[in-house]
Structures are given as structure tokens and as C-alpha cells.
């Protein structure tokens, strides 16, 4: 990280804005604050930001509207801060284009890890459509819902994924028909779980193949590319 990433913190609570800003600066980011949607738009207009941390419960405007509006004009990654116990908000937040979601009260290190993970996933992807920010994704006979950790098969049966399976599948779906080395997969999947000990990528792939009912001996979906890594071999679509 040669140039520090610029983070905009949008929260109506002045203390949280200030405290979070200080915390992010201590950890090598540049941070600014905005107290509402209007002030956020004004800041974004004046300067480039690498990521927005957006509180869902703003006083004048709904955070979801702010996010939806932001999506129509910018591709800046967004992490939503929201109240716990609101699963509907979560999925709606992600559907309208937030890249991740952290519930209050959060562990500051957890937010830091998520910010870094989102930046890692989104940097260098320019203005390409980011599938993680869109609705359901279809691949082979499966539907992937990025807002819930599960996939749905052709018969409509819901197949739950573990955290590591979810991150691995998301990485593949964001890079369909591209060979991904083990190191690249590790970087794309070492997500927000600060203390999780990582299984080897090979083991994770074999578990994911089992979930996808992909034969390990002759896999059709996740192919092993000898001495290079793995590739998602099927077509990926996003239904309108």
C-alpha cells in the first residue's frame, strides 16, 4: 500500500465519525467524514475516494436510498454499517450495490479486515460490472445469491455453504473462465475472518466440488489446470 487508500465515513453520529476516522488513520488509511447523504455527495464530487463506509440509518435520507443513488453515478465500493437483527436490510443493502456489510457494534479489526478485503477484490477492476454487487448469478444448474451464504439447485433446493466455500465460489464467479493460481485464490478468499486458520486451497476446492456435486475425478465446473491452479469452466450469467 504505497498510496494510502482514501475512505469516506458517512454516519450521522459525530462521535462515531470522528472515532472511526482516527482509527482508520492510525491503520494507514486517509479518512474523512460526512454526516448525511448530501454532504457525502458533495465530498465525492470534490475528491476521489477508494471506499465509502455508509451507515444505514441516516436522519434525513434512508441509507439504502443514498446507496442506490450513489450506485447510479459511481462505482466506489461501499461497506454498509447497520444495526444487528435486520437480515432484510442486509440482503437489500447488498442487492442495491453495497459490497459488504458490518453490523454494529462491530469489532474495529473486523471492519478493517473487511475494508481491506473489499479493496483487494475491487482494485484494478476499474468500472467493470462487479458481480458481487448485483443480484442472483446463474452458473451451470445453480443460482448463487451473494447476499446469503447458499446456492440453489435446478430443483429449487437450497444448499448452504460454509464461510470458506462461499468466499471461494465468489472468487471463481468473479473470474469465470480465468485460471486462478493458488496464491491468487488465497488472496481473493482470505476475507474478513481475522483469526480463521485457512485450509489449503486444494482442500477448499475439493469441498466446494462436493457441494456442487462436481465429480472430483472428472470435474466439469471447477477444473484443475496442471501446475497453474484452478478455473471455473462454466458460463456465468446474471438474470435481469
Amino acid at each position, binding site marked *: 500500500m504505497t498510496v494510502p487508500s482514501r475512505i469516506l465515513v458517512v454516519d450521522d453520529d459525530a462521535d462515531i465519525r470522528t472515532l472511526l476516522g482516527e482509527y482508520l488513520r492510525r491503520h494507514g488509511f486517509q479518512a474523512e467524514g460526512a454526516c448525511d447523504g448530501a454532504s457525502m455527495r458533495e465530498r465525492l464530487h470534490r475528491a476521489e475516494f477508494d471506499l465509502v463506509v455508509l451507515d444505514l440509518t441516516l436522519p434525513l435520507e434512508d441509507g439504502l436510498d443514498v446507496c442506490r443513488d450513489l450506485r447510479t453515478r459511481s462505482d466506489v465500493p461501499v461497506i454498509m454499517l447497520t444495526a444487528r437483527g435486520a437480515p432484510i436490510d442486509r440482503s437489500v443493502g447488498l442487492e442495491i450495490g453495497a459490497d459488504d456489510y458490518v453490523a454494529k457494534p462491530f469489532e474495529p479489526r473486523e471492519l478493517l479486515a473487511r475494508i481491506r478485503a473489499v479493496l483487494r477484490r475491487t482494485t484494478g477492476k476499474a468500472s467493470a460490472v462487479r458481480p458481487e454487487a448485483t443480484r442472483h448469478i446463474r452458473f451451470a444448474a445453480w443460482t448463487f445469491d451473494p447476499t446469503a451464504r447458499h446456492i440453489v439447485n435446478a430443483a429449487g433446493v437450497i444448499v*448452504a455453504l460454509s464461510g470458506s466455500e462461499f468466499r471461494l465460489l465468489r472468487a471463481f464467479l468473479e473470474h469465470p473462465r480465468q485460471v486462478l493460481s493458488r496464491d491468487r485464490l488465497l488472496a481473493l478468499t482470505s476475507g474478513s475472518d481475522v483469526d480463521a486458520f485457512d485450509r489449503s486451497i486444494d482442500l477448499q476446492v475439493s469441498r466446494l466440488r462436493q457441494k456442487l456435486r462436481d465429480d472430483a475425478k472428472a470435474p466439469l465446473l471447477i477444473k484443475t489446470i496442471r501446475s497453474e491452479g484452478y478455473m471455473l469452466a462454466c458460463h456465468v450469467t446474471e438474470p435481469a
Partner: protein
Amino acid sequence: MTVRVFVILVLGILFAIAGTLHATAIFHGPPFRPTLQLSVLGICTLSLAFITARMVTRPLRGLAGAATRLGRDIDAAPLPVTGPTEVKDASMAFNAMQRRIRANVSERTGMLAAITHDLQTPVTRLRLRVEKVEDDDLRARLIGDLASMSDMIRDGLEWARSIDVAEPFGRLDLDALLDSVCSDAQDAGHDVVLREESAAIVLGSVSALRRCFTNVIDNAVAYGGRADVSCVVDGARAIVRVRDSGPGLSDHQLGSVFDPFYRVEASRSRATGGTGLGLTITRNIVVRHGGTVSLRNRAEGGLEVTLDLPLAGAE
């Protein structure tokens, strides 16, 4: 209904015939045998009594069934108000009672949800402020205290939701769900094994059932060192067993562990802590899915938690 009215009509006609025959016999002397008349009359009376009794008791049985359902599901549909006046009154009173209980429950859970919800902002502020504490030891202790508060907030909201919110149900692959919960526990470094594939499909909410199994498996790991999870299909039900290698529970504890805020004494240490809501949330979720959850000490040692859920399509 129409069948019953028809039967009553037929019986009425039989009564009339029997009465006419009886009257004829009185006015025109012999030859009719009174035993026959009496038995026809008797059979008619008995049948009428039986049918009337059934008409009256059927709504009462409905009432009894509704009371049983209410014990399991506060949101059960209200009773139809039909039958004799007394039964109608009883049904109306029952429906009013159900509404009041439901209002009480949602007021209570609403209050809990509001308090825990409003605590989130100050706790977030506090957590960020603690980062500025220079004294390492003090900071670590403060972070520990705040983590317990965050757990209480999380569990309080989960509890409120487990009582109040009906999430949409879908058809779930139970093996995949258990596998994902066990994998997450393994990734967190816990000793958890999943044995046996059941191929069971159940109707339910993924997030609620994930929370439910996570609670049980986390408990097994926290108090029993490990979790041995299995799933089998028995008739129209899927049966999930979670076993641990801990000391098990006393009879008194077995009777109380599902109570909100009940904590097994040995667990009040900082290491295992817990809010005492985990199993209450688990039971609420299982009951919402039409299932049951029970605990028992195994003869070989350790505790076994059994959760059973109806299979999808089994009705």
C-alpha cells in the same frame, strides 16, 4: 353439514311415523305390537341424542385442539366461530385471548428488541474509544467486557427474532446445512465431526436453522470439548444428534437449560461465558419449524442433543 341436516330430517319423519302408529294403535284397538313401536322410538331417540352430542362436542374438540396448537404456535389461525351459542361464545373468547397473548408477547419482545437495538450505537462508540486506552492490560479487559455486552445485544435480538419474525421458508438440503455449520466450526479450530448423510430435505429458513445448529454445536464444543454430529431419516422426520464428551448435566439442569437466561453454573467463567439465551433461541427456532429438541445424558458419558424436524412434503 347438509348430511347432518338430512339425517335429522329423516329421524324427525321416523319420529312422526312412530307417533302416528302409536296414536293409531291407541284409537283403533289391537293388532300393533307396542314393543316394536317402542324400539323404533328408542333407536330414533338414541340416534338423535348421539348426533346432537357430536354436533355440540365437535366444536369443543376443535377448541381443545386450538388450545394445544396455541401452546406451540402463537400465530395459529383463529378458531371459526360456529356451532351452538355457548360454543360460539367460547370460540370468540378463545380468539380474543389469543390476540391478547400475541399482543403481550410482541410487546415484550418489541421492548427487548428496542433496548438492545438502541444499545448498539453507544456500545459502538465505546468500543472505538477503548482503542485509545494506552494501558494494554486495561484495554484488553475493557474490550473483553464490551465483547460480552455485544454478545448480549446479539443474543437479545436473536431471541426477539426467534419469537417474533417469520422468515420465508424454502426447501433445504439438511446435509449441506449441517456440513456448512460443521465446516465453519472446524475452520474456527474446533473438534467437530459430521457423520452419516441423510439426504433429508426440510422446509425452513436457512439463516434461522443455521443459527439453531450453530448454537447446539458451539455448546457441545464449549462444555463438552467436541461435537459429534449425525443425521438420519426416521419415517417422515429428520433426526439430528449432537453428542459431546463433557460431564453432561444434572436432572435439575436438564429441566432448566431451555429457560431464557439460565446458565449452567460451571459456565459462568469468562472463557465459556454465554448469555444463557442460546438454547432458548434454538428451541424457539425448532418449534417454529414444527420440530422438537431434547437433551439427555448418554450412558457412555457426555450430553446428547436430539433435534427432529419434519421432512419437506411429508405434511
